[in-house]
Every structure is written in structure tokens, then in C-alpha cells.
């Protein structure tokens, strides 16, 4: 039973990592129905920016909390800027094109950004400082759940609540929902669709960067390729939960994390990813819209 609980907690923390990245994915998909393959790369860029800022600040001798906050903030600002630029260059001109074109463009962008960082920085793994401090009150429970894991879990929950609130209760949230439903109609009733989409990309990218900094400081290392696997897993989580749904992304993350954890614990980590993708195929076959997603009926 203990073993089960430990695996479950491990799955939960892993799931919250996926969820944090999946939130941005699902937002973008919800609005323009595009698999933003470059999202994982924005996460990686965020982590790199965080590393650079943290290294600079360490030289100035700031304290750990200040470094964590500043590095996250700068990374988020930069990621938002990258998200905005990527959308404007690679996706906006293709808004009227067939569904395939933006997807290919996204794959191209992803490859481009990966290699941009590889060439500008390095292809080696870089150590990432443990920015999240070890909390004293967590000390007795450290063998069950670490401080960094707890912080990630809490941040994921907070971000999910915040996003849900923003989408439900604010002006921009309303505009987002309108755009998601029908771009043409939204435009007619005075929503600046381009602006809404840009803002969505910026929020999603900033979240990815926040995830990047937190997760990198938990794992302790980064390189240019971390975005690919994180992106694929996060996307799987988003689809599992029902893409476009904010709580769905978090739920999907948890389901995926726990599946992998139990697969490793009770079967073998050799086939961990086979289980993850197998679950995805199964869920999509029996519930094509995901766990919390609504099936969109085609109008005849």
C-alpha cells in the first residue's frame, strides 16, 4: 500500500509538470485549433533565459528568493515576446490556409528554435541551479515529496484556478471564448481577434517559461532538446484531458503522470512510454474528445 501511495505521489508530481506545460498548449489549441509544436521549444527557451538571468544575478550576489522570482519573471517576459513573434511570423499569415500548413509551419518553427539555441548556446547539458529553496517545514516529509515538487504542484493548481477565473470572468477571457467559438462572429461584434490570439500566445508562452524555470531547477539540468519530449508529453496530456479545456489539461497531466508511474512501478520502465502512448490511443478511440472535452459535432 505504501508502495502504491508513493508511486501515486510520484505520478502526481510528474503529472503536475506535464500539466503546467499542457496549460499553454491547450489554451492555444482552444483558440485557434493549432497544435503549436513550438510550445515545447518556448518552454526550453524559458528555461535557458532563466538560467542566464540566474547566473547573472548570482554574480551580483542576490538572495535565492529574489533570484527565483526575477529569473522566472524575465523568462516569462521573454517567452511571451517569443510567443508573440512566433505567432506573428509563422502562424498569422496562415490563418486562412488549410489545416496542414500551420502544423508544418509549427514543426519548422520548433526545429528552428531548437537549433537556434543549440548554435547560440551549446549542445551539452548545462547544470541548472536549484533555485527553489528547501523549505524547512518540509524536511520531515522530504522522502515522500520534495520542496520543489510541492512548489510545482501548488503553482500548477494556482495557475489552473487563475486561468479558469480569467477566462470566465474578465473581458479578455470573454473575448477569448468568443474567438474560440467563431472568429468571424467575434470580429463582427467588435472583438480584435488578432489581439486576442496574440495575448493567448503570450499567456501560454509565459506559462511555459514559468514551467521551464521551475522544472529545470527541480531537475537540475537543461539542454536544447528538452522541449521536444516535454512538448510531446504535455500535448498528450492536453489531448487526454480534452484539448481546449483548462481543467482537462491538468487532469490529463495527472492521468498521464500516474499511468507512467504505475507502469514503471508495476510493469517496467522499459515500456513506460509505450503505456503512455497506448493510453492516448485508447482514450482517443473510445472518447475522441478526451476525458473532459466536448465532442464537436460537424454541421451538415
Amino acid at each position, binding site marked *: 500500500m505504501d508502495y502504491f501511495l508513493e508511486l501515486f505521489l510520484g505520478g502526481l508530481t510528474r503529472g503536475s509538470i506535464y500539466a503546467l506545460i499542457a496549460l499553454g498548449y491547450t489554451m492555444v489549441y482552444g483558440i485557434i485549433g493549432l*497544435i503549436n509544436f513550438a510550445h515545447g521549444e518556448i518552454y526550453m527557451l524559458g528555461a535557458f533565459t532563466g538560467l542566464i538571468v540566474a547566473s547573472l544575478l548570482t554574480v551580483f550576489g542576490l538572495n535565492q528568493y529574489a533570484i527565483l522570482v526575477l529569473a522566472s519573471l524575465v523568462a516569462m517576459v521573454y517567452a511571451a515576446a517569443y510567443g508573440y513573434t512566433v505567432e506573428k511570423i*509563422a502562424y498569422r499569415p496562415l490563418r486562412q490556409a488549410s489545416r496542414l500548413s*500551420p502544423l*508544418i509551419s509549427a514543426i519548422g518553427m*520548433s526545429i528552428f528554435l531548437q537549433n537556434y539555441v543549440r*548554435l547560440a548556446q551549446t549542445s551539452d547539458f548545462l547544470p541548472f541551479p536549484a533555485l527553489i529553496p528547501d523549505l524547512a517545514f518540509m524536511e520531515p516529509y522530504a522522502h515522500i515529496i520534495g520542496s520543489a515538487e510541492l512548489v510545482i504542484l501548488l503553482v500548477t493548481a494556482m495557475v489552473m484556478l487563475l486561468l479558469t477565473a480569467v477566462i470566465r470572468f474578465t473581458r479578455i477571457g470573454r473575448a477569448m471564448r468568443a474567438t474560440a467559438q467563431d472568429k468571424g462572429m467575434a470580429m463582427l461584434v467588435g472583438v480584435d481577434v488578432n489581439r486576442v490570439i496574440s495575448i493567448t500566445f503570450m499567456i501560454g508562452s509565459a506559462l511555459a517559461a514559468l514551467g521551464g524555470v521551475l522544472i529545470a531547477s527541480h531537475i537540475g539540468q537543461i539542454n536544447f532538446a528538452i522541449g521536444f519530449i516535454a512538448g*510531446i508529453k504535455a500535448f498528450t496530456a492536453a489531448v487526454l484531458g480534452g484539448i481546449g479545456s483548462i481543467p482537462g489539461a491538468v487532469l490529463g497531466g495527472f492521468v498521464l503522470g500516474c499511468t507512467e508511474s504505475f507502469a514503471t512501478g508495476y510493469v517496467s520502465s522499459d515500456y513506460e512510454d509505450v503505456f503512455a502512448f497506448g493510453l492516448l490511443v485508447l482514450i482517443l*478511440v473510445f472518447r475522441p474528445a478526451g476525458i473532459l472535452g466536448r465532442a464537436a459535432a460537424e454541421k451538415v
Partner: protein
Amino acid sequence: MTDAGKESGGMTTARAVRRSLLVSLWFMFLTLPILVIRVNPVAQEIVWRWRNLFLIGVGSFVLSLVGQFLTHRQTRRTPSLTPGRLAIFRQRCMREPQIYVPFLLCAVLTTLLFPWFFSTYQTNIMTTALMYVVLGLGLNIVVGLAGLLDLGYVAFYAVGAYSYALLNHHFGLGFWAALPIGAGLAALFGILLGFPVLRLRGDYLAIVTLGFGEIIRLILENWNEFSFGPSGIANIPRPGFFGLDLSLAGATVYLYYLMIGLVLFTIFVVNRLQNSRIGRAWIALREDELACQAMGIDKTRTKLTAFALGATWAGMVGVIFAAKTTFINPPSFTFLESAMILAIVVLGGMGSIAGVVIAALVLILLPEYLRAFAEYRMLLFGAVLVIMMIFRPQGLISSARRAYKFMPVPVAAGRNKRHGTAADH
């Protein structure tokens, strides 16, 4: 950047410069941390590379100016419906035998005599390129014709390669016996993949096929007893020539002609398929799945045929791949490979045979000849994908539907004679 041209006429140079200045400032801001600062936490050092910032600034300024200039010129010209000069030229090339016959003859001669004029190395990479031509044409059936976005195509390639390697290793099966078996097994896997994804559409299909591709690779990686795991299978024999053991150069030339044959066969088959009952059903499925069903087309069977046929080619090329490299292991079959083949189809023009052939040759040969820029190869590859999608989403050569020729049939009654507008071609 894109709306610069809309204010046609009113655009002054000063404004363009100001705009470009903004663009360049933005990109300098954007690239500041990644391109300028390099940290090395191991050695505890920070390197500042201000020169990069300067280069980015100047580069993006110039590019933005040029871009604005071009869009400006384009919008100022009155949009005309007549096709561009290039299009006319192309049409003329296609139509007039005195132009295309010598050209074609030249191309055929070059292809046939290639191994005699060029080194083994050149022949070898040309063979590689031809393999991608076939892969592209195969995926073209699934993506270009049937409109099913398959991101796990490389799985079938792996199935083909491993069929030959394993059959040869365990049972000593030769290349020619393995070729149809590999193709058949790949087709079977295509159907296997096809069943669960029948109900899925568009993006969901894409992600599930991607997952399927990964699953195949993971199984090959982990199931040592079956596939020898990551250390792969070595000493796979090259194809024999009527029992003769060929030297390296001989085998390379032989493989080259084999691939030429396979390319021709593939083009022949795909060309016949796309103008057949099945091919039309695929295209209808791509255009409108619902209407397609309502017109009496069995969606399940049509999709499965597309998956199976597409996979068949991948399986065949997989067998040849194993025979060519003589060694295979799972890292040769990653998602990036699928992306590469997909890029060939999309860049070439979905559904266009000629386009796919050209795109495969360009995408595979160019990096080989530009080995000096190897570091930037993937960077450029990514950029080219994006740029192509923005400026030429229909690909290098957009596909054209077959025109059927008829004797002019007199219109039955007089009541429908009102169209003189339809331009026949």
C-alpha cells in the same frame, strides 16, 4: 510587417526606415539573452558576445526594409488575373514537344549514365535521395491524396528494414525474398494502425500516428530478444545480382539502378492510382469526408487502403535501406525522419508527383553538398519549412487534376445554352 503594403502610395521611405528600425530593435531585444550571453555554469564564466547583437540588428533591419520594399511593389501593381511569366513558360514547356522532348531525353540520359560519370560516393547519395523520393511518393498517397496527416510514417519504414534484417539473420532469407515480405508486413501494420484511428480526424489523427511511430521504435529499442535492442543488427547483406557477390562499387551501382527502377515503378503506380476509382475516392475523402460517405464511398475501406498502400512503399524502401547501410538500429527511425518525409511531401506540393520528386532531391542532396554548412543544416531546414508555408503553401508544384478529352457533344436541348464563360483547357 505584413500590413506595411496596405497603405499603398502613402508609404514614404522615412516611414519604412522607422518601421524597420522598430523591427530590428525588437529582434535585438528578443535575441539579447540567448545570442549575446553565454553562461557556462561548469566553469562559472559568462561570455558576452555583443557582436551578435550588432549583426542581428543590422540583419533584421536590412531584411525588413527589403521585405517592405517587395510587398510595397507587389501591392502597387494592379493585380492581374493573367498567369505570371513563369507559369506561362511552364505551361509552354509542358505542351510543346520540341521543348520538353529534348529536356526529357537529357534527364533520362543523365539518370541512366550517372554512375559512369560520377564517383561511388555521388552514386551512393543519389541512391539515398531516390529512396526518399519513393518514401515521399508513398506518404503522398496518405497525406497528399487521402488527406490523412500521418506523423508516424517512419514506423513502416522501420518495419520493412527490420523484416529484412531479422528474416536474414534468423532464416538467411535473401534480399529479393524479403522485399515483398517487408512490403506486405508494412502494409499489415498500416492496416493495424488504420483501424483504431479511423474515427479520428485531423490533429488527433496526427498525434496518434506520432504515438504509434514512437511505440514501434520503443519496442524495437526495448525488446532485445526480438530486435537486438539499441545495438542494432549488423552485417545485413547487400542485394545479390543473380548469385554474384558484387564489390562495393558494383553493389552501389546496382542499388542505384534498383532504386531508379523502383522510383519509376512507384511513379507509374501512383500516377495510375490517382486517376482511378480508388484515387478519386481518396481525394474526395480529403476534400469532404462527410459528402464522400454520402456519395456511397466506404470510408473505412478507403482509409485503410490508403494507409496500407502508403505503408507498402515505406516497407519496400525499408528493406532497401537495411540492405544499403548493412546495419540498422532504432535511432534511425525517429520522429525527425517522419518530419523529413512529410516536409518532402508538403514542400513538393501535396498530391503532386513531380513536386515530390524535386523536393526529395533538393532536401536530401542539398545538405550533402553543403556539408560545410552542416552546423546550420537543421536551422535552415526549420526556417525553410516556415518560409515555404507562408509564401508557397501549395508547394513547389501544385497538383493538377486530370483533364478528360471529349468530342464536342451537342447539347441536347436548346434551353441551357448560356455559358460562354467557361474557359476550357
